[in-house]
């Protein structure tokens, strides 16, 4: 890999919720321009928190970054508003969809282009999204609240695409999507990444998928990065295989056979 520019540089951040709950304990990561990076990790590891810290959405959750720094192309961004960040091309797709319940699917998508002024561009983006997610087109006039979970997820991703971003923070894009659609979503990610040079930082549980598409991966546990490396390396790491890919001992284990009591291995006690 020829050393590309680093777009996002997270440097030893600590995050505290509610003044007392320390969640991130010194997280550092780099996302190179035009690449796809993945944050992997179990429930509660702090993936969402990391993304929120980058996009400055912590405040509404009563969290704050207490240590460390976050840089976007060399510029400190801790004090920017989320809207400033979107203007600089950084958009987050939030975990749990967060569609605007009362707006129709199409209106939801259009709000995504709030920062875009060019009518033609907006229309083109809308077409692009409908192309990616034909299902959305058929539901364009229903209120988002009354669409299925998967449709909402598509809507949330589509809405982010509408902003013509250069960096997308994707929080669990695969959650609740049918396998085909998951595949499609990652294909779309790849597509955008290759054709439009969009950089991605993806927090994902679906390790298998994420490592297949990502260039680089970070593994997170209890608020710390415990392992990182090129996606291929991680995929071949034995521990990762066993705990994140469910392929201990080289073979995929049936979910039926794991029922006996099992001690989890952790990198950190």
């Amino acid at each position, binding site marked *: 890999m020829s050393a590309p520019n680093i777009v996002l540089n997270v440097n030893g951040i600590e995050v505290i919720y*509610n*003044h*007392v709950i*320390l969640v991130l304990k010194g997280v550092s990561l780099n996302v190179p321009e035009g690449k796809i990076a993945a944050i992997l990790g179990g429930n509660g590891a702090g993936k969402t928190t990391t993304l929120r810290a980058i996009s400055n959405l912590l405040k509404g959750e*009563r969290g704050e970054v207490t240590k460390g720094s976050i840089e976007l192309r060399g510029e400190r961004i801790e004090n920017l508003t989320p809207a400033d960040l979107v203007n600089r091309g950084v958009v987050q797709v939030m975990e749990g969809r967060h569609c605007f319940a009362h707006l129709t699917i199409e209106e939801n998508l259009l709000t995504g282009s709030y920062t875009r002024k060019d009518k033609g561009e907006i229309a083109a983006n809308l077409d692009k999204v409908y192309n990616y997610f034909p299902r959305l087109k058929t539901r364009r006039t229903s209120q988002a609240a009354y669409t299925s979970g998967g449709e909402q997820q598509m809507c949330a991703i589509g809405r982010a695409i509408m902003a013509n971003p250069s960096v997308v923070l994707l929080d669990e894009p695969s959650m609740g999507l049918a396998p085909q659609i998951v595949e499609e979503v990652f294909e779309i990610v790849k597509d955008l990444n290759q054709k439009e040079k969009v950089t991605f930082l993806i927090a994902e549980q679906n390790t298998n998928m994420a490592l297949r598409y990502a260039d680089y991966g970070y593994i997170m546990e209890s608020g710390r990065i415990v392992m990182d490396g090129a996606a291929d390396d991680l995929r071949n790491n034995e521990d990762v295989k066993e705990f994140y890919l469910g392929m201990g001992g080289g073979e995929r284990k049936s979910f039926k056979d794991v029922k006996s009591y099992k001690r989890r291995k952790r990198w950190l006690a």
Partner: protein
Amino acid sequence: MFYRENGQFKTSYSADQQIFPIAQDRWAILGLIAIAAIGVPLLADEYLFRAIFIPFLILALAAVGVNILVGFCGQISLGSGAFMAVGAYMAYNTFVRIDGMPLIVALLSGGFFATLVGIFFGIPSLRVKGLYLAVATLAAQFFCDWAFSRINWFTNNSTSGSVAVSGLEVFGLPIQTPVQKYLFCLSFLVVFALLAKNLVRSAIGREWMAIRDMDVAASVIGIRPMYAKLSAFAVSSFIVGVAGGLWAFVHLGSWEPAAFSIDRSFQLLFMVIIGGMGSIMGSLFGAAFIVVLPIFLNQFMPWAGSLVGLEISTAAVSHTEFMIFGALIVWFLIVEPHGLAKLWSIGKQKLRLWPFPH
């Protein structure tokens, strides 16, 4: 360092389910009640009793009631003033119309009628939610305002619409002096706060909170929204009604419907939100805040002014009081949207960590 639950192992669920599972808390609260019941009467002067402690106790009681409805069951109500009024007027009627009616029975019967009215006005909650319900409960407020000033029966045909009671006594003990009144109200508050706490930590309380947090899910696990909501209205208005009776009988002595106007409803809602929705303790904090702060500001400002040789007119004091009061409300909400009770618990959490930052 000293505030730890470490080492306090619970050996039974019963012990773990206590109201205050941490021993330090238990002692603190017992101490507080002891101070309130013994210390305060020895130390405080008449003004403090009449202008601060007694209103505080009664409004705290009402706030506990409102908190059950608003904080625990999530049904925002702006009709609490009306339920207080029902409690007051019905207690009055029971008291004066039936000879030899004991005071406590009269007050409880006020609560009972408030319950009926509360349930009646709670019926829309089965269909109407959130702010719509809040505004709809104003119907109760305005209707009761009207009924008590227009229907002569309620005021025992008093020409002015103002009524009064006197000669209060309980078990032969007079409730006359400020200290007696104070202790009377204190015991009501302690008993009802305890009962309320019991309810909210039992099955019914969980039903209320379930309805508050996610009503569809609640009904799927078998909670009947109707029963949960109406029981919250009932319990809440009972307590509020009793508080209304106390407010009228013990604090005011003589009153008119304006004593339970919409301002009172707002005041109670303030207490609940500032104190902490869904916290019995919070209701007390909230009541203390709302009762004491304006009075404090009102007296503090002229005093502070006089220090710098400034004579502030009462109008200016009053306006400044409004401004500071409003600003403080906002400030508290910003510091902790979940109220003083939450602030309190965060403080305790910090104390547990202390002296280590994390």
